[in-house]
């Protein structure tokens, strides 16, 4: 495999710049920023279990699947170079130190210094157009730690793009790298500092990324479909009904029964490895109507807040946990797409 150092610039050069961002947005006079010219996909590839360890360094994979990540979208980064990660590391640590000096933003315990490490996670990208994933880790040394003590990881985050819409990626101007999905885990004040550093450095903007009910339903169906290969142990859905006070309804389904329901709504002609939105909606309707027969409550009068299985969990407010690396590509494709859709163009 080529290293990104040699590959990325080449790719940027060979790109077609036929359509600019400006043109794209001007074609769409009706949106208020929510809709994009990008079509909301109605079919997806069915998830296939893949041993990601064959492509990605297993140590790096464990970094990605351990935490609960808070999602944001990022507009394309101007003049971001995968070759300059070392420089960025120094830059960001200095930036954090400066912020701390000002005493405004960072105040996390009694740490003395921060060490920032930028690294590339190779092999996460699925197509040639996807930029390679960048992982950032911030470590600190407690004030009273002995010299031999290991550094403590206080914050981590990463920027990624998996199966990004080619239409969108092609429309980027030169010198822009799109890594639309930003995942962070750690104290909020560090996240703010990191975001502001990125915004200053690469002229980009961050925005919080919530997962709408359709995305959650997709995840719910895709994960359930994995059950024969990888035991999902449970399928749990959480709705909140807008009563006073709010009523939470958690609906946990036996994995085998959930899978049988999913299997029964799968259309015969779609066994070629794709999943349609109609099937997903049918599946959800099937779960909701079983509930309705018992409780006479319309779950659709509330909002779907959370979906979780043993493979991972996702929340409406943009918190995601990936517990099984085999389906990393499927989940990240969906999240990348959400990020691109949410981004103002």
């Amino acid at each position, binding site marked *: 495999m080529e290293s990104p150092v040699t590959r990325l610039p080449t790719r940027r050069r060979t790109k077609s710049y036929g359509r600019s961002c400006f043109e794209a947005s001007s074609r769409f006079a009706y949106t208020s920023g929510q809709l994009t010219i990008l079509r909301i996909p109605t079919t997806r590839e069915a998830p296939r279990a893949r041993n990601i360890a064959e492509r990605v360094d297993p140590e790096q994979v464990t970094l990605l699947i351990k935490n609960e990540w808070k999602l944001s979208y990022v507009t394309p980064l101007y003049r971001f170079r995968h070759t300059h990660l070392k420089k960025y590391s120094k830059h960001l640590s200095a930036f954090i130190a400066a912020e701390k000096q000002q005493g405004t933003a960072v105040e996390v315990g009694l740490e003395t210094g921060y060490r920032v490490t930028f690294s590339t996670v190779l092999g996460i990208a699925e197509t040639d157009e996807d930029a390679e994933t960048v992982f950032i880790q911030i470590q600190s040394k407690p004030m009273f730690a002995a010299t031999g003590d290991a550094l403590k990881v206080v914050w981590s985050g990463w920027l990624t793009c998996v199966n990004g819409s080619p239409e969108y990626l092609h429309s980027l101007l030169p010198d822009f790298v799109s890594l639309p999905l930003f995942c962070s885990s750690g104290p909020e004040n560090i996240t703010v500092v990191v975001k502001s550093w990125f915004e200053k450095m690469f002229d980009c903007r961050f925005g919080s990324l919530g997962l709408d009910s359709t995305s959650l339903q997709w995840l719910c169906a895709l994960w359930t479909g994995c059950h024969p290969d990888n035991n999902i142990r449970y399928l749990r859905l959480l709705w909140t*009904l*807008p*009563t*006073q*006070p*709010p*009523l*939470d*309804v*958690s*609906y*946990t*389904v*036996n994995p085998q*029964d959930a899978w*049988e*329901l999913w299997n*029964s*709504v799968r259309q015969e002609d779609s066994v070629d490895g794709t999943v349609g939105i109609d099937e997903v909606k049918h599946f959800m*309707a*099937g*779960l909701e*109507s*079983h*509930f309705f*027969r*018992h*409780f*006479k*409550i*319309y779950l659709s*009068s*509330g909002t779907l807040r959370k979906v979780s299985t043993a493979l991972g969990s996702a929340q409406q407010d943009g918190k995601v946990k990936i517990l099984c690396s085999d389906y990393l590509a499927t989940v990240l494709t969906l999240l990348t797409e959400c990020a691109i859709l949410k981004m103002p163009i």
Partner: protein
Amino acid sequence: MDETTRTVLQRVVRKVPATRLREVLRTWGRVPARQLDLLDFSTSKFVLFEDVRSLCEVNSNRLTLKHVCELEMIYFIGNPAQGVWRACHLTEPDDDVMTVELRQFKEQFKARLTELISNVSVKIKKHDDEAVWIRIAWGDHFHRPNQLKPTYVVHHLQTPYVFVYNLSTKHKPLLYQALVLATRHGSMKDSHLSGKSLTSIRDFLMRSYQQAFPTKYARPLQEKNTAPTNPNIEKEHAEQEEKRLQLACEAFGEGNVPRLETATYKLETRYRGSGNETLNNREEPFRALIKFSSANLLVSLNHCVSAGMAETPVTPLLSSITQKGKNYFVITDKGSGNSSQSMVQKK
């Protein structure tokens, strides 16, 4: 003051908020009020504990564990909402069940429990509102009773209700047996009702809250007293709205209802969704666990029905919460191939 007494005292001082500590200590009555007034309750809990300890030692040189446990009970009785309370039900009453009175019950219970387990410390206190509070610290043949994790039991004499806090499965049969014998009953079982607020689950089980029943006289509904609307605004579905509200109040009570936090249903019924032949024809049940949770469940459910998020009439599954006084249900189909449901209590 021995080590255990010290630890228990320290825990109580730490647990009680500084603002309430003076009141609790005053009720306890082991330290003269004059000296309590001199204490500085705004210092750290560590200093405060040392102060309280020295005061105790000065005033009663033989402060025992019993006294400190009493202090803990005083605080706990005043603030019982610290964890999950479970309701239990005494069944098969003897003929003389009505004659059980406090003194007799105290002696009987202590005697029965010490017969069953050797190392146990029991403290019983009668609270104002007819309730008997029991604090049990459990031990075994090799260990002294653990005073740091006591079980609390609240029983209202001459009623079949018992409320239990922090009881391990290991000690459950022992407690049950002692209670059954002391209250002259045949057996005791779990009521499948639990909640964080003792008063709420007690009121709920004893039905001392306002239930809505249809009456001949127009009820002074609060909802009716809303500000008069503009005559040019007309609600097409006003009648249905009223009806839904009535049904919701009948099913979940009205006004100030006891605070329940959850209701759980274990569904082991056949799949009942619409338009899915494959699953509808399946013999095995569709297994699911439904948990409703809210800061005040009955109010939320009431609102859910009255606002039309649920269809009326209220399904028996939901109205069973108030009618049966439970918040845990196992639902199975009545026989096989029968579409009607029955509620089967979990053994």
